[in-house]
């Protein structure tokens, strides 16, 4: 980890100097006061204040490092790429024979993603959401869920009967809700408790 140590008349001044050196803002660093310093009396016995300022790792850096190390220990040589740092931090794993990393209905991928979110948010005040994809699995799943939503909606309209989908994760349910939001004849709602929470699609 990168850090600098600075001395100055006051702690505040020393911190300012260090931040300039690191080219960082206060919320990107950890400050450790090594010596409070002493103004002395009229300049006599004055002692400089000393601080160590350490650059904190960015959440996306922590996430990528964790995933890389995990993949290595799982025995996969894959590329781990940062795709986006907007609303979500998106990380994409690319490589061959990555089926086991995804697991049944993405269960392994979801477990990895859950662990990454815990690790990244362990010491942070702000919550960062991390989404991990493997070879576009989530994108493909999203498309098939949207298609499923449209098909079921059509079926509900023709049979005039509600339809209950299989249990899904929160983000998967959101895809279904969003896909049918603009449909004037259909309502979607989630029922049940996690992890068996499911969507019911019915007529308005």
């Amino acid at each position: 980890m990168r850090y600098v140590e600075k001395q100055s008349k006051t702690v505040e001044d020393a911190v300012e100097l260090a931040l300039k050196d690191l080219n960082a803002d206060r919320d990107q660093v950890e400050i450790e006061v090594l010596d409070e310093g002493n103004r002395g009396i009229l300049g006599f016995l004055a002692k400089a204040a000393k601080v160590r300022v350490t650059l904190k790792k960015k959440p996306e850096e922590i996430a990528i490092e964790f995933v890389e190390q995990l993949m290595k220990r799982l025995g996969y040589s894959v590329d781990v790429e940062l795709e986006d740092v907007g609303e979500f931090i998106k990380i994409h794993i690319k490589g061959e024979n990555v089926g086991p990393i995804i697991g049944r209905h993405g269960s392994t991928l979801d477990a990895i993603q859950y662990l990454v979110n815990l690790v990244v948010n362990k010491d942070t005040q702000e919550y960062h959401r991390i989404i991990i994809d493997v070879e576009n699995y989530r994108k493909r799943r999203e498309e098939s869920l949207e298609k499923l939503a449209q098909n079921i909606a059509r079926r509900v309209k023709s049979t005039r009967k509600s339809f209950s989908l299989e249990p899904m994760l929160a983000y998967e349910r959101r895809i279904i809700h969003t896909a049918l939001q603009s449909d004037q004849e259909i309502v979607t709602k989630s029922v049940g408790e996690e992890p068996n929470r499911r969507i019911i699609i019915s007529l308005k």
Partner: protein
Amino acid sequence: MIELVEYIAKALVDHPENVSVNQVEGEQSIILELKVDPEDMGKVIGKQGRIAKAIRTVVKAAAAKEGKRVVVEII
């Protein structure tokens, strides 16, 4: 397999120096005993065992590759 569990556990807890994993090998299965600081138990188990379940799921993916059944026990 030991390194995998150890790495995940150390990343989750507040006292990584107190994490240890012991491997007990059976005929068809491997038991991995994960030990953490008492204060960190919640960090590897989670609400309703959600974190423990995630660790087991990831380990299972690694075990499938080696064709063995792996059990992770938190002690």
